[in-house]
């Protein structure tokens, strides 16, 4: 039975739709503006006549960005850190989560508190820096992937997921003579695709966006991830090599804004492209975390 909507309810619905649309606009407009401005002529962007459609379309800004060596080396490094880092994260997290998910494991009661404590207390920035320095990891690629090998939060999510795998599967496998290593690789991991997918995404996005570790531990600019280059170009307004070749100071300043917008697009494009395909996993990841946490 459908109850007819009252006038008040209809007004409520309309206001609600208006508010939702407003949220949508506020979220999307900055992206739209960046795209439009990156495609427009520097003069029209600087004078403020661009706001919804590109004016005086030109691709010079992209030309400058795509010819820049730093952007490409930053891209390469970020991809390296993301790939290697995520593989290390997944292996290490799984190796910790599986034993801790076994109720019969006699080390569980000692090890779990040791791990959980690190979520609430730590040595902090300086002692960690000194450790990394003493390990000789400063200014090496490994510093970007090893010190963050396990996120305790993700470890707990994964452990909870493993705990929900029926115990009878383990018992059956043990009767068949399987050991824990075999059970993990052949039974638990294949059954854990959802949580593995979510972990991959979380860790990968973390590596892709990470900036502070690079700032702390890296000195050589050829090791810099994309985010360090972006900081230089977008925030410190340090011009790209390509731009230094451009005639006068005024010309450089004039094209600067469009180049920065093009830089945002070039660096954010991968996430914007994969986002529609991945977003359902993102949400389910938060749910897995939220319900268990």
């Amino acid at each position, binding site marked *: 039975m459908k109850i007819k909507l009252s006038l008040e309810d209809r007004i409520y619905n309309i206001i609600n739709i208006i508010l939702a649309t407003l949220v949508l606009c506020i979220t999307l407009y900055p992206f739209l503006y960046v795209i439009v401005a990156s495609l427009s002529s520097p003069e029209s962007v600087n004078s403020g006549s661009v706001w919804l459609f590109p004016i005086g379309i030109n691709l010079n800004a992209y030309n400058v960005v795509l010819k820049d060596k730093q952007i490409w080396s930053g891209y390469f490094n970020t991809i390296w850190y993301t790939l290697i880092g995520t593989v290390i994260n997944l292996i290490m997290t799984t190796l910790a989560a599986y*034993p801790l998910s076994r109720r019969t494991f006699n080390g569980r009661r000692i090890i779990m508190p040791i791990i959980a404590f690190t979520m609430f207390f730590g040595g*902090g920035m300086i*002692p960690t820096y000194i450790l990394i320095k003493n390990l000789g990891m400063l200014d090496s690629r490994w510093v970007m992937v090893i010190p963050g090998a396990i996120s305790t939060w993700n470890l707990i999510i994964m452990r909870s997921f493993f705990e929900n795998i029926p115990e009878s599967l383990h018992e059956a496998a043990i009767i068949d003579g399987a050991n824990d290593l075999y059970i993990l690789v052949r039974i638990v991991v294949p059954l854990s695709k959802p949580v593995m997918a979510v972990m991959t995404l979380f860790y990968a996005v973390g590596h892709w966006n990470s900036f502070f570790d690079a700032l702390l531990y890296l000195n050589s600019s050829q090791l810099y991830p994309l985010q360090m280059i972006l900081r230089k170009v977008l925030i410190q307004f340090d011009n790209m090599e390509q731009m230094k070749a451009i005639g006068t100071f005024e010309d450089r300043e004039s094209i600067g*804004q469009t180049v920065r917008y093009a830089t945002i697009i070039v660096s954010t494009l991968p996430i914007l492209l994969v986002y529609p395909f991945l977003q359902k996993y993102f949400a389910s990841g938060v749910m897995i975390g939220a319900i268990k946490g």
Partner: protein
Amino acid sequence: MEHTFKSHFSKRDKLSKIFNRDKYLWMMILFPLIYYIVFKYIPMYGLIISFENFSPYRGILKGPWVGFKYFIEFFNSTFFWRLMRNTFLLNVYSIIFGFPAPIILALIVNGITAKFYKKSVQTISYLPHFVSTVVVVGMVVNFLSPTTGLINHVLSFFGQKPINFMIMPRWFRTIYIASGIWQEVGWSSIIYLAALSGVDSGLYEAAKVDGANKIQQTIFITLPSILPTIIIMLILRMGNMLSVGAEKVLLMYNPLTYEVADVINTYVYRIGIGNSEFSYGSAVGLFQSAINFILVASVNKISKKVSEISLW
């Protein structure tokens, strides 16, 4: 009683039997355990340098002891109150403005009846969460540019003079918090939407029969239903009062805005890493960690009492 009759030998035998049963599990957890000891516990041990005159050439235990000298130095420095005030205010404002935002968004999204539109708003609202902080701050800086930025074009359209937002201390907190809400509101609303989807639809049916309109349903059914989630999230948020991540502040601030922007973490970074004052920086960091730990522990205790939900 029984085990008193067993010989020492059989007890050891039992132990080795248990270990044998779990040997693969121990092998697996070996690397993670080493990881935690090296990268989490050794830095905790490294905190010793807060109490000595540390020099990287001498090593951690070899420095001359100075006791609480660096802590006292920090408490007496002009920075102490400035850092405490900035850290505290950024937190308070972000709780006042940032905390209710995802709840309101969740209510709005939940109220959309068209399924496709509901999904679209939800999906798009958490897109900014996946854009890096560097890019978000980069967008903010460029939009606010006094000469070429979008915001100042709009202001001049309305006959206002351009404002150089990024170097004006009184704009820092507003920009920091507003951009934070823009980036995280959608993502944070997911947990409330999950809570909302668990509300018994029978309650709404009953309310409709009683003649309650949508606003009344929101106030008397929806809000009370998600109140436990709201309280837990608020308590957890309170436990983080003394930590403002250094990352975003470092990207946003400059010497002109230090007086309002500098927080404990950025100060530790500048002094500790920038000026290599390891002992002093470490002492400041330890002060922050200690307060945070106390906050989390007490909040956990309160949460245990109020909601029977606790972190440990």
